[in-house]
């Protein structure tokens, strides 16, 4: 114990040193108190029957499990007060298997509590530390081994071995290289190009300006060529970047926008992917023009550049400039001017 030399210490200082309790402060265990099942044979018999009933109940429950497995159908339902209508198969199998297991446990514990001896027994602890003789012997053996190996005398061997061992994990790291391609600049690029037609995200229907009333919103839109790209690649990568939302406000409600005249008659297009951690943003409050991310509640003001007004997101939502094509459908006037989605080191 790191106390000042000569000062009185509250507890003794050597390893394993103890305050020895006075016998009257911590006496031996004392007489063992008997349970009713120890003294009354009828109580013991009753406990025995209780245990057997539980084990027997488990047997019944297991058989019921097999019966339910065979007889209850996948689509059968059952209505239970408070819980409501639930699948009958899951319920019956769960109850039967659960009871089957629970009753084995309850029986075993009842058996241990009522019928097995409840007399406490005592084991002594031994200190874990080896005695000084053993330690000295180990130290000597080790020194002898080291001496015999010559590892201390031959630094050339020691150092080359160390170098070899340090290098050996390198292949393990190098071999992870082919897990995926280099990131390159893919995260900066989306499918949007000048003239990309804007379509509904699920139905892929093109959108006319008059489809969106003032105050209205299209919560999910994608470029028209997305389905083809998705089909080719068999994945959702482009969708994860290209998704946008469209909102329409009265042109005089737009206080500021990132791209001059980026709107079309008050229709604004913003990336739907949160600049915080990439969740699709869906909660639009028409009155305030605020867009809230459901994951971490970053809030963006769509009437004012898509700026962050609350929450953990650090960057505004990128705006997509839009216009209409010759057929009167909404199209992108240009690609995104800044990377969409979460920040990354090289983003700048």
């Amino acid at each position, binding site marked *: 114990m790191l106390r000042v030399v000569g000062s009185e210490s509250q507890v003794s200082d050597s390893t394993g*040193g103890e305050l020895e309790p006075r016998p009257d402060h911590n006496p031996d265990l004392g007489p063992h108190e008997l349970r009713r099942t120890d003294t009354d044979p009828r109580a013991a018999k009753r406990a025995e029957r209780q245990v057997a009933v539980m084990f027997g109940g488990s047997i019944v429950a297991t058989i019921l499990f097999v019966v339910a497995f065979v007889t209850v159908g996948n689509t059968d339902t059952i209505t239970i007060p408070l819980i409501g209508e639930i699948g009958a198969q899951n319920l019956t199998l769960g109850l039967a298997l659960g009871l089957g297991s629970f009753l084995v446990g309850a029986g075993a514990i009842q058996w241990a509590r009522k019928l097995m001896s409840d007399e406490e027994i005592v084991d002594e602890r031994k200190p874990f530390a080896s005695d000084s003789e053993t330690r000295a012997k180990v130290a000597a053996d080790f020194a002898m081994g080291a001496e015999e190996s010559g590892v201390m005398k031959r630094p050339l061997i020691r150092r080359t071995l160390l170098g070899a061992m340090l290098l050996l994990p390198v292949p393990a790291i190098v071999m992870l290289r082919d897990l995926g391609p280099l990131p390159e600049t893919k995260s900066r690029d989306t499918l949007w190009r000048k003239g990309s037609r804007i379509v509904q995200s699920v139905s892929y229907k093109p959108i006319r300006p008059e489809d969106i009333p003032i105050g209205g919103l299209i919560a999910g839109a994608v470029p028209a060529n997305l389905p083809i790209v998705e089909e080719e690649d068999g994945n959702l990568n482009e969708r*994860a970047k290209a998704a946008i939302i469209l909102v329409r406000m009265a042109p005089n409600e737009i206080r500021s926008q990132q791209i001059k005249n980026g709107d079309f008659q008050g229709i604004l297009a913003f990336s739907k992917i949160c600049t915080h951690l990439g969740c699709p943003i869906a909660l639009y409050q028409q009155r305030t023009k605020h867009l809230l991310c459901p994951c971490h509640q970053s809030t963006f003001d769509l009437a004012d550049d898509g700026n962050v007004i609350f929450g953990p997101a650090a960057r505004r939502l990128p705006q997509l400039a839009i216009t209409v094509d010759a057929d009167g459908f909404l199209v992108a006037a240009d690609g995104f001017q800044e990377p969409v989605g979460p920040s990354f080191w090289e983003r700048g």
Partner: protein
Amino acid sequence: MSTTNRVVETTATWVDDRIGAGKWMKKNLRKVFPDHWSFMLGEIALYSFIILLLTGVYLTLFFNPSMKEVVYDGSYAPLQGIKMTQAYESTLRISFDVRGGLLLRQLHHWAALLFVASVSVHMFRVFFTGAFRKPRELNWIIGVGLMTLAILEGFAGYSLPDDLLSGTGLRIAQGIVLSIPLVGSYVSSFLFGGEFPGTDFIPRLYSIHILLIPGILLGMLTAHLLLVWYQKHTQFPGVGRTNKNVVGFPLFPVYTAKAGGFFFIVSGVLTLISGLFSINPIWLYGPYVPDQVTAGSQPDWYIGWLDGAVRVIPNWETVIFGYNISWNILLPALIIPGIMFTLLALYPWIEAKATGDKREHHLLDRPRNAPTRTGLGAMAISFYGLLWISGGNDIIAQAFGWSINSITWTIRVLLFVLPPLVFVFTKRACLGLQRRDRDKLLHGRETGIIKRSPEGEYTEVHAPISQKERAQLLAVREVDYTPIEAGPAVDENGVAAPKKGRMGRALSRFYFQDRVVPATDEEIDEGQHHAADQLDTVRQQGSITTGSH
């Protein structure tokens, strides 16, 4: 009977002849384990883990960890004809077309929730009773590792079905990976085999979830249990219990029945819950599509505090020389959890530095007898709890109609204000309880008997406390530390004292400056005799019956 005996004997001989199991059995068949309800918390964790292994193996028989897209034609009508990955499709098949599949899936999920919960509460027990002290620091470290892996494993598991909720969770995880300075984009591209979501990640996560992490968990868990076995379990102070013995019931038969039985109780209760209560109904969420999301997305409970940290942080980001450092993600998702887990892992050494105690401790502390430790623990829990509440800020806002901005700001302030208050309050409460214990040791327990003296003074009669209680109360003397103080600036030989140890002394002062001095033997004897005399007089007068306490 005799046939059974013969079979047992023959088998035992056969085994012993070959591996000498007798010596080991002789030592361990009647090995003593102490009894206390709180020792079952670790058992619950162990049993949930076994249930996870069993149900997990079953689920692998049906789950197909592939991100190849198929059109659903299974028996769940609302999703028929919808494009989804095979991972999601096979999870639906387990839930609707494999008999008992839903039960086992729900059992796997409930067991995972219980696993992390019981690991956490078990850790609280170990912390607040000081079971991490010498010689058990190694097991504490293993435990912290187990808890970290348990959280990761849970997250990996619920991300596998590729439903809308778990896909959103993966998207967030990918965003966190992207925020790593310098290498974030590369790590993300390698993990996902290119851009998010790609088609590689679920199969990769699958081998991590069913092989890599469970393998490490199993190894560490074995080491954890072997150490408990070898070092023998700690026990609470009480009659006959000392630092040098272990008092309890034998492994065979009592603990074989109790612990074995308890396994069936835990799995029985979990199975009943899985039969009655739905968990993670992925069919309601639909397949993952990166431009769709459900409002009120919530992770499993043990991820809640991380999500809450991410929600509550202000939107700090720095751009230096055209490179981007996202503090708003790095701090809550990586740096703060890193600090929290490091402090947790190092705690045994921090406290040992303050006590300067090198002894072995096998008797557990009552939390009140270590006021600073208990205060620190309560403080940490309040910090964690606030983050956890922050993870549900949208739910709270909706349920109570409060502004989400006010909730977030309140939590930001509380994160700095509440934990210190909790520390002070808890520590004071512990010291108060210690003072009461001390009074009890000195004057005995209050009997509820009021005595009137001839002068008209009313006093309450105290009775001596039981031996059991006295043994429990006296344990405080084992852990009564005074602050480590600096020696004289110059010792008797005129050598200046080293400056070293100043930090340790400050730490020690922080821990032990406020302390309740335990009663000495003499004080106790005097007080108890007084109490006994007092009670005798009252009993002899016979006018008052002893009030029950």
